[in-house]
């Protein structure tokens, strides 16, 4: 061949020499056309075929076989379907739907209502609780649910370490559990415990579960349908694909209105929002909460309701109280200036909560006050006018002056050691709210003369447990019974030594608070207990170790052309996904019409044909262009 550059002229010089060029050229496009036509045909087929068969709208709307399915987009994987092991929100929500608990919480105001137990009473010494078990609850295999099942469930958790994995803390104070008759359950306690009507433990059928060898390994996901007695029965499960529940027509409170409930996975929340817009799902779970942008994009959409629900979380700024272990040894290196309550209060008074709600949460949160969110009206507490640490940077500056932290020549406040005050704030790198508020704190506290170092990490657990922080962004979900979130600030929750891990949240240890905590745990009168819990919150507020900034909303959305009505919790304004109870899904009423945006099969066919025509037209253009491009070769 010629000496031409391989990639350059060689090609052109060769071409005229090929005698069969014309013939060859003719053959190639024919093959290409054939292949392209086959491809196009396949596409048309998929589009055309797919649409009439499109299972999505059928799934989300009334199905053609008459079944009404409510489809919920979720993201969280199931950790286990065994009630003894599951701790994640999705898994425990499924257990709420498939098993009865002794008691439930009223959707209106979260007060305790009957579940598997119809009545309960405590002995005068407060140590024996007797529950009357209902006689109209049946397992889905036809057997009756009895007190014996409940006793067996609790006893298994008390004796088998594997069975205590998820809910062992509920039975830690149990002395003995017996079932004298099928309708009577007796629990004897070691010491009084006010949370006996808030035992969030699914009761399982003994005749099914006593065959399990090893509770730490059994995930309850192979033998479907799973025998249960809740409003729904678990009938299908594919990891990270879907969880299918069918209505339990014999449920003692009445059958759910939908025939089936399908939790389908959308790992990407934007995709889940798209699926809702399309009608492929009826509901997008607000866990995690929809972003302000997603909520805004859905707000004006036809047939979609955005439920901007008051959340069950508080979002706080925790200050290191000079972390110590139970044995008195110091943990970590919290800033000594924070031991002065005036400093802690001054810091919080320089936090503009209104800006946090308006700018960071874009309105999807409520201004913070007490430790327990307002949705639990019974326990909610607000500081009085005189007690309130309202936003007041001027007063904050005066408090710091009083505490002896004066400004130096550079305008920086200096500590007793003459060094400028600079606080390390622990923040979650995965939480945009932490970062945004951190920037504001730099500005607000900077104006006070205090430096801020934002320490945003993927994993905050390690420095947190080691007490290596001055302040930290903190938050917990609060249950209808607040015992747990209160317990994590008691001295008893501290680690035994600096090497141990305790249940404590922020190393708080306050005698007065602890006294109140013990008092509420032994107080069986709800009103009196609520009163004590409010005093505890007041104490926590004054101490300034847990400064609640906001209560973030749980933003979720659903299609009103698929769900006509659904109960929120609390019913006035509350969330649907992740309720403490089965109210939302149990009460959901399917919309009458089947005319969702999912489209009917006839439009599907039309669309399939249109798509096919478009593809073919595109192909025609392509072939024409190719012919024109190679026209010179044809001579």
């Amino acid at each position, binding site marked *: 061949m010629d000496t031409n550059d391989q990639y350059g002229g060689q090609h052109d010089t060769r071409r005229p020499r090929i005698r069969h060029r014309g013939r060859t050229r003719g053959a190639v496009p024919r093959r290409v056309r054939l292949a392209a036509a086959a491809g196009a045909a396949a596409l048309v087929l998929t589009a055309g075929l797919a649409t009439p068969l499109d299972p999505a709208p059928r799934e989300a709307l009334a199905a053609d076989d008459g079944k009404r399915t409510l489809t919920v987009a979720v993201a969280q994987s199931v950790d286990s379907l065994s009630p003894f092991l599951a701790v994640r929100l999705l898994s425990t929500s499924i257990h709420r739907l498939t098993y009865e608990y002794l008691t439930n919480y009223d959707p209106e105001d979260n007060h305790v209502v009957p579940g598997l137990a119809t009545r309960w009473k405590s002995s005068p010494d407060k140590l024996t609780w007797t529950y009357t078990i209902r006689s109209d609850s049946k397992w889905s295999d036809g057997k009756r649910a009895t007190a014996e099942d409940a006793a067996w469930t609790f006893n298994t958790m008390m004796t088998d370490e594997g069975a*205590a994995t998820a809910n062992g803390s509920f039975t830690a104070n149990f002395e003995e559990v017996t079932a004298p008759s099928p309708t009577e359950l007796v629990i004897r306690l070691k010491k009084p415990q006010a949370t006996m009507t808030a035992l969030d433990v699914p009761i399982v059928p003994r005749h099914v579960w006593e065959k399990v060898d090893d509770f730490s390994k059994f995930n309850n996901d192979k033998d479907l349908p799973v025998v249960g007695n809740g409003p729904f029965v678990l009938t299908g499960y594919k990891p990270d694909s879907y969880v299918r529940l069918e209505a339990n027509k014999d449920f003692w409170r009445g059958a759910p209105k939908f025939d089936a409930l399908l939790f389908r996975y959308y790992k990407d929340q934007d995709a889940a929002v798209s699926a809702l817009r399309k009608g492929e799902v009826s509901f997008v779970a607000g866990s995690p909460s929809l972003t302000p942008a997603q909520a805004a994009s859905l707000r004006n959409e036809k047939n979609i309701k955005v439920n901007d629900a008051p959340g069950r979380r508080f979002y706080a700024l925790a200050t290191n109280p000079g972390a110590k272990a139970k044995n008195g040894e110091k943990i970590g290196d919290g800033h000594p200036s924070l031991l002065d309550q005036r400093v802690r209060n001054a810091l919080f008074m320089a936090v503009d909560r209104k800006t946090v709600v308006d700018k960071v949460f874009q309105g999807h949160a409520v201004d913070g006050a007490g430790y327990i969110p307002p949705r639990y009206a019974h326990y909610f507490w607000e500081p009085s006018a005189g007690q309130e640490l309202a936003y007041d940077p001027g007063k904050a500056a005066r408090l710091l002056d009083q505490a002896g932290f004066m400004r130096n020549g550079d305008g920086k406040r200096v500590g007793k050691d003459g060094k400028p005050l600079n606080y390390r704030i622990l923040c979650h790198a995965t939480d945009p709210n932490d970062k945004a508020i951190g920037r504001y704190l730099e500005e607000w506290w900077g104006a006070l003369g205090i430096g801020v170092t934002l320490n945003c990490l993927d994993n905050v657990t390690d420095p947190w447990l080691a007490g290596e922080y001055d302040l930290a962004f903190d938050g917990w979900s609060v249950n209808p019974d607040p015992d747990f979130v209160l317990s994590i600030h008691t001295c008893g929750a501290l680690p035994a030594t600096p090497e141990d891990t305790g249940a404590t949240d922020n190393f708080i240890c306050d005698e007065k608070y602890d006294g109140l905590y013990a008092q509420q745990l032994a107080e069986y009168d709800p009103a009196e207990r609520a009163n004590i819990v409010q005093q505890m919150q007041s104490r926590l507020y004054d101490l300034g170790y847990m400064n609640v900034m906001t209560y973030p909303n749980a933003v979720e959305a659903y299609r009103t052309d698929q769900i006509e009505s659904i109960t929120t919790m609390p019913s006035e304004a509350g969330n649907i996904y992740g309720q403490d109870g089965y109210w939302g899904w149990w009460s959901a009423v399917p919309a009458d019409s089947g005319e969702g945006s999912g489209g009917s099969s006839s439009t599907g066919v039309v669309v399939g044909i249109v798509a096919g025509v478009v593809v073919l037209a595109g192909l025609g253009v392509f072939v024409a262009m190719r012919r024109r491009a*190679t026209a010179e070769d044809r001579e």
Partner: protein
Amino acid sequence: MTADATSAPVEGARTASGPVKDGPGAARGPRARTTTAYLRYVAGKVAGAAVSLLAVLVTSFFLFRLIPGDPVKFMTGGRQVSTEQLASYRREFGLDLPLWQQFTGYCGKALTGDLGTSYQFNAPVVDRITEALPNTLLLTGTAFVLYTALGIVLGTRSAWRHGRLGDRVGTGLALTLYSVPSFWLGLLLIITLSVGIGPVPGLFPTGGMESGGEEGFARVLDVAHHLVLPVVTLVAVEYGQTLLVTRSALLDEMGSDYLTTARAKGLRDDLVRRRHAVPNALLPTVTLIFINLGRTVAGVILVETVFSWPGLGGLFYQALSVPDLPLVQGLFFVFSAAVIVMNTLADLIYPLLDPRVGR
């Protein structure tokens, strides 16, 4: 991930051509000697692969111990647990043992095919992997076949008519798509083809592998329907690589004398291409094919996430965020093993494709 793959073919080609220099005399020897040489070559490659696998086993244990985070704290975070429960968790996962004991236990079990128990799913790692593996293989396997075929066909055509409009547009398009982030393309496809724009309703599901509850043939159709968009995304992003490698390899061959000879014999142009040029130019592409084949197991984390595909990529992401050490280690081992096995296979096939290799 793609960056590694681009540099890898060169690497593979270099290893493969290595033995050529070593055995100059082999070509003259009798057939038996050639066979022995090949066997020695095979043994060397297999031994190398075995050593790599062992190294991966050891690395995976220590590498992921560097991830900060206490798995027990993560799993119990946000709920009521007693100190006794925490201790029992640690005991159960073997986290209370010294590191070297954890390591020997892990190695001993791994050799018997037991990769441990996932912390967060409370199930054997092997079970979780075998559950997700077919899903990933379905997605990436389908895409692999399509993008390889498309890349080879288009690459050949591009090279044969290089410099022409078709080549420039084709190569440009392939390069553009190759540079597009897959999750972004996936989201675009969801917005246009899933949700639908304007009067056109969506044609394909927004995500997932199946609707849930379908059985038999209806389920096959359902899964196929769900498969379309993720496969299209993967093919669009991946075919460019094969195209470019095929194109440049073929361009290298196009100056060769044997092609002139073939033409001089009067062969038709497409015969020259198909029978003479392409087979000789395919070697780098074969390397790439095997590397891609190894990668199919690793799945595609981003595409699996955007389309909510229940595969290994998504599992890996979840495992890392805990960190669910046994699951992370197990997946890392499986991913690495797939690449090592496929590379070894490529090495073993080379001598069959090109007799100069492996003598």
